[in-house]
């Protein structure tokens, strides 16, 4: 293609107004043509980038910066990110009740090195980290409160309670059995003792009556 023709196309291309078929052809030229006027392309790209300088500058709201920070943090929080695996630290505590605390995990600032070691079993390692930190949590916290920030721990906690419930029930039944056994055996024993006493009294009474009868006959 003629050099001047190429430059004419470049002017429309940098403005973004080339029709799609023509644009496709120009892109092929850029890649395939050795003497494509790439310097002119650069000059016109710089030129159109100066067009906004004619506008009155406006300032975006202060919340935009926080929004960017949030979005980047969300990117960092993706499960694929290795930094979660590398370092999970306790950074903050939320006070619930007097004797209940929940720990929140916060990932540290990511560094490029962290991207170099991507573990395939990230999920497992994350769970292990959380389980390891679990030992630091107070025993008396309520599962439903913990669940809001640490679902896995809450689940384990609930399962623990359930196990404890089962043990308590068995213990309770055992205690009841022992109590019943002890109470009724004692009662039966008491009843037996009482019966024996009555029996001996009756025997003694009968013996006294017999002796009295004999004495009466003698007299």
């Amino acid at each position, binding site marked *: 293609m003629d050099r001047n023709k190429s430059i004419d196309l470049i002017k429309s291309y940098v403005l973004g107004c080339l029709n799609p078929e023509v644009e496709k052809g120009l892109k092929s030229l850029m890649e395939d043509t050795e003497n494509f006027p790439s310097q002119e392309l650069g000059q016109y790209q*710089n030129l159109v980038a*100066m067009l906004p300088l*004619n506008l009155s500058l*406006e*300032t975006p709201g202060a919340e935009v910066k926080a929004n960017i920070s949030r979005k980047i943090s969300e990117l960092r929080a993706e499960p694929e990110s290795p930094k979660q695996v590398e370092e999970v630290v306790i950074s903050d505590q939320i006070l619930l009740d007097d004797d209940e605390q929940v720990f929140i995990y916060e990932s540290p600032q990511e560094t490029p090195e962290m991207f170099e070691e991507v573990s395939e079993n990230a999920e497992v390692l994350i769970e292990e980290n959380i389980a390891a930190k679990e030992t630091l949590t107070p025993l008396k916290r309520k599962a439903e409160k913990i669940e809001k920030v640490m679902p896995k721990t809450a689940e384990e906690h609930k399962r623990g309670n359930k196990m404890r419930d089962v043990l308590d029930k068995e213990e309770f039944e055992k205690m009841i059995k022992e109590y019943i056994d002890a109470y009724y055996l004692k009662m039966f024993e008491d009843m037996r003792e009482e019966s024996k006493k009555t029996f001996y009294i009756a025997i003694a009474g009968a013996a006294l009556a017999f002796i009295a009868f004999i004495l009466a006959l003698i007299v």
Partner: protein
Amino acid sequence: MTDGEVMLKVAGYDSQALEELYERYSQLLFTLINKILDNRELAEEVLSDVFVIIWQKIEKFDFKTNNVYTWLVLLARNKALDVFKRNNNPGLMPEYNDDYVNEFIIPKLSGSIAPLELEKILSKKTGIADALNKLTDAQKYVIDLAFYHGLKEDDIAKKLNIPAPTVKSKIQVTLGNLYKKIATEIN
């Protein structure tokens, strides 16, 4: 620190460098995005998306040519126009995914482009604005329809009810003249 040095730090996932880049460019990019979208709230959202793209796609920046200014301006323009088209033609646009961003949002600058930095450009702003203001209303309108509204040559021809070759000719003459004037102003 130059814009190029800031970009290099961003490439090292330095979030403070990204903040520095935001401090330098947010006004210009926001003004451009808001001009395209004419919706301040949406423009702020798109501005934040642009900086996330910079963070994610920093490896696409050519550190050899090191033209931060043009790369950022064209990136912001591409993103804003894409949002504008998606809002106005829902269902007609291709799926927005990583490949799409690489192909249509990330600018492909010439390998021979001269470096530009915001500080240098701002120091020449008055001269550049004068050159732009010397365009005729018709020239300004055509440039406006193409650059800020994303219209193709055929669309501009239909909108202005003029033949497509006339539009092409107007664009070529306008940009040619503008280049000469601005080159004079800058140098």
